[in-house]
């Protein structure tokens, strides 16, 4: 896929490149980081590049011929206790049994598209279409650390306690974010994820 994005100035040393799809964002992110650019921040439909010449950015994107699937991101296995407070709601909304819901969620391979909202919070694409559904009508004031949720087309794990509106289907005991560790963030853009029922 050749990358063609719309360029917007974003501060004296920044350019925001806008794409039509999340797939294009992921491709662009791969291309720019593979080219050695240090400050590349992907989001839902855009990538912010800071401290690089916009012409260089344009050239890298124009010349890139890989696809979003050509990823060298590591595979992360996340053990999940599928006992979330919204599991039945998610199953009911999808028109499935809870066991089929679990099987469907755990059977997919996900990819970290981008991070935002909180440190270590990775938006995971690859959620099966049958499980796409809206957020809760009323967000919780507190979601426990390690909660596994779905919202829209994404799944995600909450790295720390925070308010949150995602529908929670389980939780994991592994740490997604430890700022004192050598590698503080478990899920980085481009990494692949599989959830394993325990």
């Amino acid at each position, binding site marked *: 896929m050749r990358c063609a994005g719309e360029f917007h100035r*974003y501060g004296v040393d*920044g350019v925001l490149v806008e794409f039509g799809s999340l797939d294009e964002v992921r491709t662009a992110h791969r291309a720019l980081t593979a080219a050695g650019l240090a*400050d590349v*921040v*992907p989001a839902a439909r*855009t990538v912010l590049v800071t401290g690089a010449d916009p012409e260089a950015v344009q050239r890298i994107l124009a010349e890139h011929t890989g696809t979003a699937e050509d990823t060298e991101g590591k595979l992360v296995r996340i053990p999940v206790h599928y006992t979330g407070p919204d599991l039945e709601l998610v199953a009911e909304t999808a028109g499935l049994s809870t066991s089929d819901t679990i099987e469907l969620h755990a059977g997919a391979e996900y990819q970290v598209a981008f*991070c*935002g909202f909180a*440190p270590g919070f990775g938006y995971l694409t690859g959620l099966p279409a049958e499980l796409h559904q809206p957020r809760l009508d009323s967000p919780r004031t507190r979601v426990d650390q390690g909660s596994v949720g779905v919202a829209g087309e994404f799944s995600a794990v909450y790295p720390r306690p925070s308010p949150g509106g995602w529908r929670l289907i389980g939780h994991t005991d592994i740490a997604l974010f430890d*700022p004192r560790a050598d590698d503080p963030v478990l899920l980085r853009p481009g990494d692949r994820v599989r959830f394993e029922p325990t």
Partner: protein
Amino acid sequence: MTTFTVLATGPRALVQDLGRPGYAALGVPPSGALDRGALRLANRLVGNPESAPGIEVLLGGLSLRANGSCTIAVTGAPVLVHVGRAREFAAAVVVPDGAVLTLGSPATGMRSYLAVAGGIDVPAELGSAAADTLSGIGPQALTAGDLLTVHSPAVRPPSTDVAAARRWPAELTVPVLLGPRDAWFDDPAAQLRAGTWQVSDRSDRIGLRLVGPPLRRAARYTDAELPSEPIRTGAIQVPSGGSPLIFLADHPTTGGYPVIGVVDPGALDDLAQARPGTGIRFRPRH
């Protein structure tokens, strides 16, 4: 090894250095001292590298007992620096073993910066000692009873800076580079140039929330929604109500409201010192 016993803090005292830039792709804001120039100066005055961890003191009131002699300097919002008697602001001051250092409250500005020769010794998180008030990374805010460790200072002469006194006016004019979403707004340069806003008291390290005339969208964007996109320090975000918010160092890394422009980096130190009620005017350019 010198330590400080925290006897009292004012509204908020945080360990800050020059932050942890470069982790926005992981959802981590840059944090660090909001008035970077003031921290750099304080560090130079005591012979530290400019990035050494110091204490960002919001509206004064910090009181520490030195266990071991040390050299300190206080910059930023001018405050009384009391060690036995009134000492010099924005200058190196020796604090003898057992002495109590107390900062007064600033009459102008918001944040003072205390540097100690050697720097404050706290564990680094993602390469920095900075306290991030959005996500909770880094050390907790100082509280009475805390014991702070100080790195042993390197033997080097302090830089001989002449520290000019800073004052902050009742109204700031801030240069702005329009974009990325200026097209979402009806004649954005004219609107930004025409209005005057005030810093609200709901402002903090995450951002300055401004009160004043709402920024009107262009007709075709009236009900438009924006997929979450990256936010950077200095971004002027305009939520649906139209009241602008200038993001500062502890900003969230993505957001779903349009950014009309970015304030010039050179204006950030003054914005860090803008009290609630300060008038804000913009000078936009493309």
